């Protein structure tokens, strides 16, 4: 349910950045979203289409780059991706078999760039 305030923030950031470079129109907003950030892409798009009407960002495409959660092995210091479904089988480091693991990514949530017309 918090996709609405989140979408308001995305729109505000895009409009501020567009104004900063004196762009007339925002054509795309490129977002980075970790798989652990509990954000539903479709619902952000739905709110965005509604909120951006009558703004220079109307009709902009929202591009979501999903970042998988990544673990760091506390024994060999290597990083590796995993799928959430694998958690239950008990994870071990694919490089050294270590089990002291720490989550290092997957909660990202930021506007990486915007595409604009001058």
């Amino acid at each position: 349910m918090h996709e609405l305030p989140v979408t308001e923030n995305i729109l505000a950031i895009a409009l501020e950045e567009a104004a900063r470079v004196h762009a007339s129109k925002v054509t795309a907003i490129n977002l980075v979203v970790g798989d652990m950030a509990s954000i539903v892409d479709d619902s952000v798009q739905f709110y965005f289409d509604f909120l951006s009407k009558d703004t220079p960002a109307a009709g902009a495409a929202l591009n979501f780059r999903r970042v998988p959660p990544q673990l760091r092995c506390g024994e060999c210091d290597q990083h590796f991706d995993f799928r959430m479904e694998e958690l239950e089988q008990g994870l071990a480091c694919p490089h050294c078999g270590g089990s002291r693991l720490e989550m290092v990514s997957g909660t990202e949530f930021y506007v990486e760039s915007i595409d604009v017309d001058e």
Partner: protein
Amino acid sequence: MRVQVVREILSANDQIAQANQRLLDENGILAVNLMASPGAGKTSLILATIAATRGRARLGVIEGDLASRIDADRVAREKVPVVQINTGGGCHLDAPQVSRALESLPLEQLDILLIENVGNLVCPANFRLGAHRAVVIASVPEGDDKPFKYPGIFAGADAVVLNKTDLLPYIAFDLARFRRGLQAVNPKAPLLSLSCASGQGLPAWVDWLLGQFKPR
């Protein structure tokens, strides 16, 4: 034309969270964000903590709920400063709500502030409040699979409480499986098993909490 931005979408919330933490620090207060699903025992743990820390630390409480003053009234009966936030349907507390609540608390008289978040294992994990520690409370009747199903909130916890252990004889709850799940998503967080009903395990929780306050 592409414009590089790299701005956190929740940065407005995060900035207010930082201001909250500065205000808490100025008053020497340790704030703890308590997160759990509805009915896990957040308010019960707060009441048990108030009773167990009397004379050792001065507690204050912020209660977050969609509606009602039920929880704040329960806490107020213990003669502890409490503010109720009603989110009006919002699924989590956010930093501006906590900022307003802090204005109504006698900060100079507090050592530890317990913030009871809205009952929800998803959204509260994404909104910083300015608390110094995050604690997730799970409970035996919810099942042993919760760390696997809600990894985000467990991954961000500084400690995990497992409440209602008095029900272990009656419910098919595999403690080893729960531990395995927690180990997978957050190997660092201590697991504190306790029962607010029987009081078993509470001293370890109180020691952990007071231990977080001490070195500050």
